[in-house]
């Protein structure tokens, strides 16, 4: 880490520290001497473990970000978020089919949403959380699945919802319903599974497994490479 970088003032749970600019919230905590156990996962913006809130000494408004992605700024006040319990309905995906009404049945509190939009403002992925909650209320499974798709399940929406709703678990339920029951069936996958089960490729695989390295190298060099750009694009 560049030690010559300009130092900036930050506050971790109220305590003053100086860190070089250019660090993320996560690396600023580590630079200040914190060793993480909680609040740290993939360190790349995918797992949601480091979702955090912060504000500034001169601006009390809370902001929401992933600690591994957000760069620290002067006068930032950082906290480590404690664990938030969240409601998670358990269900048998095979039985619930793609019935949009099931969302309400499994998460009855969803009708309490009064459209304050805090969830959307909170989402570090900038998803339209409140809109997909509205879709969920109407039982529109494909719309919820699509709009919630980039959710990393950090749980900030649920942590901040004044009604105690759990948008991220509702999005997941809708996506699973969509994937299992509504997505068009892929016949070519089923066909290939049957072909493999019927032993169609067994002889060829046995043969290639026994082929010597020299022969394998020859076949490898002579492979016909399919063009990367599919003709049927769009």
């Amino acid at each position, binding site marked *: 880490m560049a030690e010559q970088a300009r130092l900036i003032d930050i506050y971790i749970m109220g305590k003053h520290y100086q860190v070089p600019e250019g660090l993320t919230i996560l690396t600023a905590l580590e630079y200040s001497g914190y060793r993480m156990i909680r609040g740290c996962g*993939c360190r*790349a913006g*995918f797992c949601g473990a480091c979702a955090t809130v912060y504000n500034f000494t001169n601006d009390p408004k809370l902001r929401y970000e992933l600690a591994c992605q957000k760069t620290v700024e002067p006068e930032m006040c950082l906290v480590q978020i404690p664990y938030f319990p969240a409601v998670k309905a358990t269900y048998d995906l095979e039985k619930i089919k793609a019935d949009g009404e099931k969302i309400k049945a499994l998460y009855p509190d969803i009708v309490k949403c009064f459209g304050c939009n805090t969830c959307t403002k909170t989402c570090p992925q900038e998803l339209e959380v409140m809109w997909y909650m509205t879709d969920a209320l109407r039982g529109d499974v494909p719309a919820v699945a699509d709009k919630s798709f*980039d959710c990393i*399940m950090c749980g900030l929406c649920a942590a901040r919802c004044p009604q105690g709703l759990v948008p991220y678990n509702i999005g997941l339920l809708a996506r*699973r319903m969509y*994937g299992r029951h509504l997505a068009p069936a892929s016949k070519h996958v089923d066909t290939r599974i049957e072909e493999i089960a019927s032993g169609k*490729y067994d002889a060829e*695989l046995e043969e290639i497994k026994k082929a010597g390295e020299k022969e394998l190298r020859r076949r*490898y060099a002579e492979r016909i490479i399919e063009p990367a750009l599919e003709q049927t694009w769009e």
Partner: protein
Amino acid sequence: MYPTYLEENIHIVEDTRVRRLIQNIPRLLELDKIELLRKYHPDFIAASMRKLQVGVNKGDLTPVELADLLEGRSRLDPAKVDPSSPDYNVDVLVIGCGGAGASAALLAHEAGARVLITTKLRLGDANTVGAQAGTQAADRPEDSPVHHYLDTMGGGHFENDPELVEALVKDAPSAIKWLEKLGVNWDKAKDGSMHELSGGGTSKRRLHSARDYTGLEEMRVLRDEIKNKKINYLEFTSAVELILDDKGQIAGAILLNMETQELMIARAKAVIMATGGLGRLHIQDFPTTNHYGATADGLVLAYRAGAKLVFIDTMQYHPTGAVFPLPILGQLVTEKVRTLGAQLVNKAGEQFIMPLEPRDVVTSAIIRECRERGMGLNTPNGESGVWLDSPMIDIIRGEGTIARELPAMVRQYRRFNIDIAKEPILIYPTLHYQNGGIKIDTEGATNVPGLFAAGECSGGVHGRNRLIGNSTLELFVFGRRAGSAAARYATEVKRGSPTLEHVRRWQQELEKAGIADKRPVSPQLLPDYARRVKGYTSSIF
């Protein structure tokens, strides 16, 4: 936003786009490939490796960072821990819960076993969620498992275990189907045909994706299903030693509550190791794409219990890690960017390698471009890198492709005011994957009775270099196989009495080799990035 001197260089990249649009860089011949790897791939730096002095793989070479941990001392004093009074008593204990551990747990549960999962971060905080590009399966009519087999063997330099590769390619389509039945949303056309892309080293289009959140989509579904099935799990709880019995069979593990530092005994008839990789050991000081817990714990525990390791002298350096801006140094820029048509370009705006060669080859070419030819660019922070010309994707495939196919990448760079649809990405290789690991058979069984392994911590299927999309595939193929096999094994095994004798013997072996006081305590559990100004600390209690 790039600094001015980089912005100026981007103009050169822009100027060569029309020419590069029709330029066809041929794939390297086998001999040229080998030469390139020998000269530039980090695996070939002799000083980075050391021969192991103790254990089953004594005499084998491995990176010094891993050697230190494999030869490490136990965290326990076996005299003070009684493995016969368990806190948990189950049929199958799964250590680690990424894609492999979750698949194994679900299948073992389905087979009727009592299952306990233990994981040192949260359920599903694993490299699986960072896998973006996709999962391979030869399921298009134009493709066949035989092509998949040959591509995989060639990518691994023909040293892969043929039986494992056969299992991988034959199970692949059913793994895709299994995930879909659990509710994974695959990218597909309205007629149901899967939207499949090429990858580095594949001869056919066979990568199944879920935007560029493929691994995340797979993991969040599996995690949800574990909760629906009410399978027991312990978070922030690591395994620090395996327990064997007097017959040399697996008998469970000693667990550590990471927060209270309390030890617990988990008795199990079978243990499935699914602890993932080792990127956080920062081999040769490389940055890494790996999650916070990737510290080779499973390798260390299994090795100490007598499990054989394979291919531990080969690591995968992903060709395209971010080098700018600094906060995301080393983070993954998915291979899907090249899969969709982005080219690798040096500071003169020229291509220097076919972008869809296998990863080890592309990585070596980038290192040569920067280190030997001086054709890379320096970042303000002193790193060097080359351009990954992402705007080519929209030029080739039409505007909006990047937004639709790469939302995670767009989002990551937008945070730093870089629009990857308009400007290229500055990259350099980053430590990504451990090609080898614990030796397994096609059921995930190791040479230690009752010990199974699956996923990145196992080795053999990828030979010396893994292909894109074969890692997520491996999780579901061998995770499921190990789960079923472990449940079956648990119904048949005759238990002995549990002991930590092997830990005692290990300590003696270290002393005999004269390294007992020269090695760190292991498993490492987590990296230590906390900066301590004075270099020392004190406990409160």
